[in-house]
């Protein structure tokens, strides 16, 4: 029966019913030069920056100022100005820490894991996603430091020989966090910088002013583009990708241990590590979309960040959103199955207690709304996708809120309490947005936000590229 199918129809490859048109990694008709013109000229300010850049930067910088005020007041008065109390000793600080650090994960996933998996769609988005990672980790790091109350003693977190004979508690995942997050930050910065070196060299050679040539020249560390340079560059890039890959999992797993090693009902859940990692990727991709959609419009980068890239990110969001939702199901199911008074009791509190609204809010944001992404038409609609991403970011923030708020009602009712953030909690949290957007906008202004080197490799051979590493799947 099957033997005759092809002959009967006389079709070529088009007979495969599920195949659509090959997606485009690069649109337009670009050459090696036009890539630099389109991307490099933004960084060297040859192209004027759009008005939106100034608006976002100004807003970000204003919020950053608010952050400075909030932190100054905090350092003057102490953490009592926050809403934290007993039992909810971890308030906004841990929620925001986990939320920001989760956002960072998408950057590392895109730059490292997708590189190892030979996913070509990472190329246009990896650079700014890595920048996002670095700034997000900086925002995250602020919170535990401030929450310590005496951030000037933060070096006590590191094990060093001292007169007090005082060491960190090595069985505490909070101490593991110190190592995990600082390693993650270091590797992310190195990975990002190594990837930037050939691009800095291009800018050095194409910058119009002397000072730019000098600065980019310093940053490119003597890159001449010789075969030796390329060979070592590709090797070190691959090695760094290999080092970064486990970090995607380890950092957020350790963050999840902060909760899961306790014996607080619903915190002590063995599924937490993968559940947190997936949630991190979900929120990270939401942030990537929140940044990519306006950027490509404002800077007319549709040729490089094509609909295909946006679609891939949306699909990852949908998939990870479903996995995170499985986590919510699993938590409730296991709490009920255990027939443990406290597990199930706390679950009921979580769903129907005084903070029940936040649980349903997270279900709405992370499970219900992303279902929209099943429909290709809506995935392709920038406004819809942008809105879904914002909702997902809110949902993932609520996820951590719901976890932390569990502390208000756990074991003995006599120890129950309430938690509400103060204006200073909000000011610090919103202030970190200011920090993030200030740095990110400066990055957009002075650093090529898309890797010119890698885009050039994707170009067809006749335009001077490498045909996307000679892959037969590449665009014509």
């Amino acid at each position, binding site marked *: 029966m099957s*033997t005759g199918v092809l002959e009967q129809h006389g079709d070529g490859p088009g007979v495969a019913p599920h195949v659509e048109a090959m997606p485009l990694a690069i649109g337009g008709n670009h050459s090696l030069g036009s890539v630099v013109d389109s991307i490099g000229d933004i960084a060297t300010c040859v192209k004027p920056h759009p008005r939106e850049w100034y608006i976002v930067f100004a807003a970000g910088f204003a919020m950053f100022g608010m952050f400075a005020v909030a932190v100054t007041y905090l350092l003057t008065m102490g953490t009592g100005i926050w809403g934290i109390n007993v039992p909810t000793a971890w308030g906004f600080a841990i929620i925001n820490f986990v939320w920001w650090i989760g956002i960072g994960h998408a950057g590392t996933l895109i730059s490292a894991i997708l590189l190892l998996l030979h996913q070509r769609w990472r190329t246009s988005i990896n650079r700014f996603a890595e920048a996002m990672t670095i700034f997000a980790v900086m925002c995250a790091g602020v919170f535990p430091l401030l929450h310590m109350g005496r951030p000037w003693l933060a070096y006590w977190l590191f094990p060093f020989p001292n007169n007090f004979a005082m060491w960190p508690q090595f069985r505490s995942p909070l101490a593991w966090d110190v190592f995990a997050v600082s390693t993650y930050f270091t590797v992310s910065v190195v990975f990002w910088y190594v990837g930037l070196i050939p691009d800095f060299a291009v800018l050095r050679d194409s910058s119009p002013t002397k000072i730019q040539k000098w600065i980019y020249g310093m940053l490119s560390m003597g890159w001449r583009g010789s075969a030796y340079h390329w060979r070592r560059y590709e090797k070190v890039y691959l090695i760094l990708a290999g080092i970064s890959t486990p970090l995607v999992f380890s950092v957020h797993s350790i963050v999840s241990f902060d909760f899961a090693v306790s014996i607080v009902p619903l915190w002590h859940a063995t599924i937490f590590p993968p559940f947190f990692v997936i949630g991190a990727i979900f929120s990270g991709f939401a942030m990537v979309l929140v940044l990519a959609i306006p950027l490509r419009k404002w800077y007319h980068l549709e040729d490089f960040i094509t609909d295909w890239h946006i679609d891939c990110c949306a699909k990852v969001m949908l998939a990870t959103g479903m996995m995170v939702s499985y986590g919510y199901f699993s938590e409730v199911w296991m709490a009920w199955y255990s027939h443990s008074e406290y597990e199930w009791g706390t679950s009921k509190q979580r769903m129907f207690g005084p903070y029940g609204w936040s649980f349903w809010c997270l279900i709405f944001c992370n499970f219900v709304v992303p279902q929209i992404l099943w429909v290709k038409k809506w995935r392709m609609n920038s406004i819809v996708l942008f809105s879904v991403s914002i909702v997902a970011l809110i949902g993932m923030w609520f996820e951590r809120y719901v976890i932390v708020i569990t502390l208000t009602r756990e074991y003995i009712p006599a120890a129950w309490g309430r938690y509400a953030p103060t204006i200073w909690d909000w000011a610090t949290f919103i202030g970190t947005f200011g920090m993030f957007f200030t740095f990110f906008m400066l990055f957009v202004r002075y650093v090529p936000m898309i890797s010119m080197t890698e885009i050039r490799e994707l170009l067809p051979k006749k335009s001077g590229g490498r045909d996307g590493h000679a892959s037969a799947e590449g665009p014509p």
Partner: protein
Amino acid sequence: MSDAAANHTPVVSDTPEHRKALLDGPQKFALRVGLIGLIAFLILSGIYYGAEANETAKVQQPFLSFLSGWMFWTLVGLGSLFFLLVQYVTGGRWGILLRRPLESNCRTLFLVSLPLFLVVAATMIMGEKSIYWWARHHHHMHHHVEGEAKPESDAKKEKTQIAAAKVAKHGDDSIFNNISPHLEVDEDEKVNDLLNPTFTVIRGFLYFAAFGLLIFVMLKKAMTAEYHDNLDVARTARFSQRYVGSFGLFVFAIFMTWIATDWVMSLEPTFTSSMFPVIMFDNAAVTAYAVSLLTLLYLKRKGEPRFANLFPATEQIHLGSLMLAFTLAWTYFNFSQYMLIWIGNLPEEIPYYLKRTRGGWGWYASLAVLFHFPIPFLLLLFRRVKSSPNALRNISAMLLVVVFFDEMWWIQPSMSHEHAPKFYVLMDVAAWVGIGGAWMFVFFGQLKKHPLLPAREMYLLEAYHHGH
């Protein structure tokens, strides 16, 4: 006929006779091995029945061993269902070669696993001789022995009795003393509303029915997409497969959780771990993948020209890397579960690991970890290993064995074997081999029924390899 279509000559050689010649040999071999395994299992069970002094344990042990073997092969089917659903949703190149073995495994789930579920269902309704504590507990609650006082309705008293019975049964074993009556878990309620025998048996059949419906719809659509003469109809079928597949994955995740809870996790009275279904899923994925990979490598070794061309070293490296990923995931999931339970040290959870690290099980577990993580990890890191058909075959086979020993480790220590004849391990292996033989016999039979490659999508793979 266009040039591109002319390249599809392999399809012509894919005749039933051809497949029969290829697969008859291993099918007969599977039948023989299966029969030997089943006979060995029956004989060993008989000997065990005579050798074991404990009246309850002599009945329980064969069922427990059977569960070990049956669960393994059921997971092969479930893992295949998972990969097939993902393949239908994403349509990745990786799944084109794997599709037929996966489909055959899914069909085998119904032809082998479902009938044998009757044996597992039987032990669920066997009352005080069941391998499941809840079935015994249910029996005690509802069928008290005449002449004795009716069991107290007071949950606390009931629990004290069970705890005392456990201590009496297992001797002065401190592991079991840990399950003390002051635990916060209400066992009576647990048995009443979820783990009562009737409901659990019905749920078991429901899982099979739901998965059966899913597989039926999916394979029907697959047939339409692959063979229907009208290309528009075929295309519509392929697109609808994506949606059915997505919905299927949703159902799969939830049902897999319930299956893990009902059939394995509930062997322990108070053990609850949200990671456990995930670990079980990972094992299912590894075994399904290993069985499919072994099939492909066999076809390649047999000199099947298409497999030699379409399954070259580069493709092997891709599929081997996926195996590496699942091995790493297993380690990650297991370490997380173990570390969190160890550090929490709660009386509900910790007995699970205490039982499984004492009385020889500790050595056993360490060996299982060694062969499940460091060895395959170090081997699969190297492209040379992944591109060697023999090495990849040996690693896949090793993982099949290791996953079986891992699953045995979940199941067997739920009973105390302190005074038991030690050859019960052989019973597990015999059950595994016996059911495995039956499984592979049916599997090869199913594989023979359809062309070994999905013709309409082969060009994707061919284009890829020509490009290299």
